[in-house]
Structures are given as structure tokens and as C-alpha cells.
């Protein structure tokens, strides 16, 4: 049955359906509603979990780490500065190959202080070894959260579900939530055979000498590459059980005769879908919209297949690596390198710090590729008039 739910509320309900043993979180905008709703579910007796109100995000991640090491199904959620404060622990969780799920309500990173959406936070921990899945809508965020619990159990890789702060977290949308019995039937109990157990004592987190460190990293990388298939099959399984897929590794939509592709992640995809519906028949022309759901692991082969034959690929970043350009754009360029007849790549950062992205962006992006003098990368919606000449 569909219910009108705020994104955060829907995520709390989805997490609750997965019956975590331990939830630990610290307040931060725009994530807070998720844990507020979870604490209410606990208080109402609808969710039996250890809910820990910790003193910082560092503690939240640490509590979740400890719980996961003890074999518990653990969950946390944060955003922005919280992700950065967790960073040390996130690397630990992934390096220890502990299963858990975390929601990131994507928000810009200070300074300058901003509470609004972009992807700088999760991008900053891109290399921590977590799986990172981006949701384009609240329904996708809900479904991806449930899938994440299964993916993390199967791969022993922690999963970060990224959803755009405010744009998704604070937006009401009709959400179809499965019943708890359906989720119980679909999500097997957590069986983690490396858990801390007084009956069978073991040590976790010990020093690894150079004799073994490269092998540990290699096996982590291998596990991430292998998880590509798990992410795809889990989504397919979910679709079979619940009648709805979330987009596997990536999905392609739009006019197959189009010469231009647009690669985007998160809620920007929804904006581009709306823009394409309105403007594709006009001067802007058609495009293929490539919605990237799995950012880590990066689906290089699937992306090459998706862009093959196109003249131009526009990559939308909602973060910037100052001194290099777009982060996703740089990675797509790496994936396209060496590809025969690779499309021309255009990379733009959009919507940094919550700058609104209008539907007309679709036409603007397509118009911009006709400009022969356009730079290879730009902060597309930056208003140069607001800057002193030397900063333009």
C-alpha cells in the first residue's frame, strides 16, 4: 500500500523493516529526521533495537563498528561534517570487512558553512572501501536501503545509501513499503562467522605488517569488483519479489537514436527526466539519460556499453575536486580512455551547496555542447558576475 511519507520517515520505516539490532546516530541536518523517526519507532514499541544517542558522529560510527564486530545488524546515518568526522571509522569498518548499512543525506561540506545538498561528503570517503549506492527518488532510497542490508550480508562490505539532502530527505512522496513479513522472507538473518565470541576468542583490528597489507587491500578491491554482480542480482531479485527495481548498477533511458548522453547520480536524474520530457522535442533535442546508481564499485563495463556509439557524453558532478575538476567526470574519462571511438566528454559541476537545478538545465546543457570554446570542465551554474575578475 502506498503512503505519503517524507523521505527521512520512509527511510526510518525501511530500516525498521530490516530489524537492525543496533542503531547509533548523532543529530545533523538534513539527516536528523531519519534517526528521530527511528527513535520514535523504538519508543512506540514497533522496533526492537538498541538505540544509542551518542555524543558525536565519530562515536556513532564506532558504536556501529563494535556492534557489527559482535555480529549485530548495525545501522547509522549522517551527512556532511558527520561523514568527515566518521571518516577514520569508515575506513576501519570497510577494512575490517564488517557488514553494516549507513544512510548519507548528502550535504555540502564546510567551509563555507552550508546545510544544503551536494555530494562532497560521500565523495570525500569514496576511497574508504564502502559500497556507495545513489538513490534518485525516495522510493529508490527505500528499496535500496532494504537491498543494502542483503548486499552487505552477502559481500561483507559496508553499504552507504546516498540520498540528496532536503531534495529527497525532506520531500513527501507516495512510498510503497513492503510488509515486515515480506522483508523477513526476502532478507535472510545475518550470519557473520567472524563475529567476536567469548566462546571462541579472536582479535579484531590487529597490526598488519607489510608482509600482508597489499594482499588485504587486493582482496578488498576484488570483493568490491565482485560486488558489482551482487548489486545487480540483488536488485533483480528485489524486483521479482516486490515488482520494482531500483536501477541495478546503472540504467539508460531516453531516445536510442540520440547522439548525446548525460550521466548523473541522485535526484539530478529526476530533474533531467522532467527536463527531457519537456524539452527533448524542442530545439534541445533528444538525449540518453544514464542514471548511475552504483558509484562504488564503479561499473566501468556497464558504462562503456551505455555510452558506446554516442558522439558526446555530458557528466554531471555535484562535487568538485579543486585543481582537477569534476570527480565523477574524471572517473568517466578514465573509463572511456582507450575505448575505440570514445565519445567526447564534457563535465560540469551543478547544484553545489544546494544551488537549485531547474528543469531547463536539460536544454542549457545540450546547448552548451555546441559551443566550440566551452571548457572541458565548468561549474556550470556559477554566476561569474558575482566574482571579482581575477576569480572568474
Amino acid at each position: 500500500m502506498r503512503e505519503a511519507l517524507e523521505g527521512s520517515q520512509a527511510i526510518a520505516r525501511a530500516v525498521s523493516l530490516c530489524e537492525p539490532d543496533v542503531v547509533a546516530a548523532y543529530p545533523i541536518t538534513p539527516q536528523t529526521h531519519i534517526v528521530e523517526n527511528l527513535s520514535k519507532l523504538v519508543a512506540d514499541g514497533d522496533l526492537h533495537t538498541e538505540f544509542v544517542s551518542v555524543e558525536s558522529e565519530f562515536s556513532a560510527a564506532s558504536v556501529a563498528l563494535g556492534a557489527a564486530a559482535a555480529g549485530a545488524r548495525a545501522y547509522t546515518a549522517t551527512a556532511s561534517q558527520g561523514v568527515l568526522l566518521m571518516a577514520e571509522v569508515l575506513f576501519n569498518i570497510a577494512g575490517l570487512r564488517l557488514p553494516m548499512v549507513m544512510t548519507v543525506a548528502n550535504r555540502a561540506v564546510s567551509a563555507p558553512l552550508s546545510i544544503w545538498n551536494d555530494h562532497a561528503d560521500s565523495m570525500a570517503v569514496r576511497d574508504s572501501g564502502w559500497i556507495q549506492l545513489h538513490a534518485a527518488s525516495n522510493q529508490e532510497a527505500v528499496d535500496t536501503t532494504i537491498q543494502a542490508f542483503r548486499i552487505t550480508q552477502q559481500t561483507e562490505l559496508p553499504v552507504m545509501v546516498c540520498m540528496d539532502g532536503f531534495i529527497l530527505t525532506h520531500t513527501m512522496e507516495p512510498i510503497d513499503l513492503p510488509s515486515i513479513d515480506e522483508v523477513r522472507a526476502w532478507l535472510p538473518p545475518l550470519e557473520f562467522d567472524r563475529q567476536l565470541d567469548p566462546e571462541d576468542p579472536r582479535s579484531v583490528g590487529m597490526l598488519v605488517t607489510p608482509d600482508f597489507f597489499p594482499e588485504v587491500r587486493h582482496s578488498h578491491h576484488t570483493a568490491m569488483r565482485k560486488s558489482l554482480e551482487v548489486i545487480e542480482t540483488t536488485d533483480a531479485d528485489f524486483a521479482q519479489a516486490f515488482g520494482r527495481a531500483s536501477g541495478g548498477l546503472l540504467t539508460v533511458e531516453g531516445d536510442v537514436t540520440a547522439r548525446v548522453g548525460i550521466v548523473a547520480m541522485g535526484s539530478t536524474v529526476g530533474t533531467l527526466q522532467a527536463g527531457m520530457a519537456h524539452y527533448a522535442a524542442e530545439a534541445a533535442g533528444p538525449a540518453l539519460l544514464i542514471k548511475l546508481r552504483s558509484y562504488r564499485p564503479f561499473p566501468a563495463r556497464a558504462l562503456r556499453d551505455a555510452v558506446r556509439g554516442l558522439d558526446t557524453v555530458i557528466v554531471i558532478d555535484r562535487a568538485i575536486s579543486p585543481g582537477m575538476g569534476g570527480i565523477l567526470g574524471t572517473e568517466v574519462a578514465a573509463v572511456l580512455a582507450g575505448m575505440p571511438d570514445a565519445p567526447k566528454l564534457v563535465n560540469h559541476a551543478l547544484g553545489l551547496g544546494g544551488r537549485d537545478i531547474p528543469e531547463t538545465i536539460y536544454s542549457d546543457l545540450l546547448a552548451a555542447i555546441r559551443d566550440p570554446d566551452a571548457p572541458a570542465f565548468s561549474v556550470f551554474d556559477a554566476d561569474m558576475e558575482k566574482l571579482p575578475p581575477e576569480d572568474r
Partner: protein
Amino acid sequence: MKDVDVLDDFDIEDYIRQDQMPHFLCPGCGHGIALRALMWAIHDLAIPKDKLAVVSGIGCSGRLSGYVDASTFHTTHGRPLAFATGLALARPDLHVIVISGDGDCLAIGGNHMIHSCRRNLNMTCMMLNNEIYGMTGGQVSPTTSSDRFTTTTPAGNTEPVFDACALAAAAGASFVGREVTLQILALRELLRDAIANDGFSFVEVISDCTEIYGRKNDLGASPEMMMSQKSSMRPFAYRNTVDVPFRPTGLKTGVLAKTDRPEYGKAYRAMTEKLRGKKGRG
């Protein structure tokens, strides 16, 4: 110590950035009173604005630094004392004031708080305790009273609270005091002595979050909350610790600790001088 002159020439507008008004605080919030008391104390001490640095973290308290017409620094969550430590060491000529909150100072920044007390570097920390994370909508904090309702304790808070002043005194702060916002004149005097103290001063201000915490716990409007926070009308009596705790949590007001521990900046500079002398450099 002279008695407080109520009818002096203090005008808050001389100390506040008018272009930042209206402020963002909710009606009934105690933080504005605390800021006024702080500015009044600075006026009493005749501290020039170019010798004043105000540092704050994140939260409702964090926004106050931006309203002060001086050198101000809005830092990251929990870190104002760490930023201020660098500032006070580099610029011992400045009066460094940290405005923090119960979450900023005692939870995420608790580590910096205890080490600031231990180090006893010359600065003043005014911690506004409203028992809640107000900015993010009212989650439980380390000072939320027992059984109180917050958005993360919908069934009532079961965790024990911090006595921030006892913590500060135990960790070595050379001046520790607490006051309620209703006693603004006493608070002004307490802050004045805290700033004048040569060392780390910790002042806890019992503030009220009427809009979120008060509403959720049926504590009445701001006047009721403020009246319930005070023990008795003691407008000029802050120097004497109130023996009767003013709340069920057993917190007391007044000067709660004062010691003559060496100020860290002086010891640090003496060591620096000594080491420079060793190499024969100026």
C-alpha cells in the same frame, strides 16, 4: 570589586552587527540574554573591539559569534576550544571568548573541553546550556534532564546528565561558575570576573529553549522556564554559591571553583624564550 552599576552607559547596539539583525533566535530563547550579559561584561572591562576575539562552534550558540562586532570565528562542531587554543597561544594580547553549547562543548567537543581546563590557557568559555540540540530540532544532549522528552528520547531520557561545572573544576579550570539567564546582572558580573581571570575560565549559563524543549516538555513559556531555573532572587549575589540547588538535578549557581594554577600561555612562552636563548637566536 565594585558593585554593578545598572544604569551605566552600556548600549548593546555598540557591540552588535546591525547588518546581521534580525537575529535567528526563537522568541523566548535565553541565548540573547547571555550574549547581552557577555557584551556588558566586555563593556565593563573596557576591552577594545580590536582586542576581542569571539570563537563559536555549531548549534544555536554557534550563531552568536557572527552577531558580535569584533573579530569572530564560527568554527566546526565541537572545535571552538581547539581553535581558540591556537588563537590564544598565537595572540596572547587578545581576549579570547568561546561561546559554546551543551552539545558542542560536552558531547562532540568534550575532549577539547577537558583538555582546555587542564591546560589552563587564558580564555573564557561561556557554555550555553539549554539541555537540547535546538538547531537540529531538539535531540537529546548530555545535559538533558532525566525523563525529559526530546525527538530522540520520545519515551523520556534515561541517560544521566553531566554537571559541566564539576567536570570543568575537576579537570583544572582556574575559574568555574554558573548562572541562570534571569539573573542577568549576576551573570554579567560572573562573566566579567571570568574574563578578568588569568587562566581558563568556564561559565555555564542555564539558558532556556522555549520553542522546542519547553514546548515538548510542557515547561511553559520563557518566563515560566526562567523562573523555574532560578533558586531565589539574588541579583547581586553570584559570588556566594547557592547552597540550595535550584533544580532537581542538584546544580548550584555562583562561583564554583577558583584556583591560582599557573596560566599555560606564560609557561609556554617562558619555555620558548629559553629554547631560543639556547641557540642564541632572538
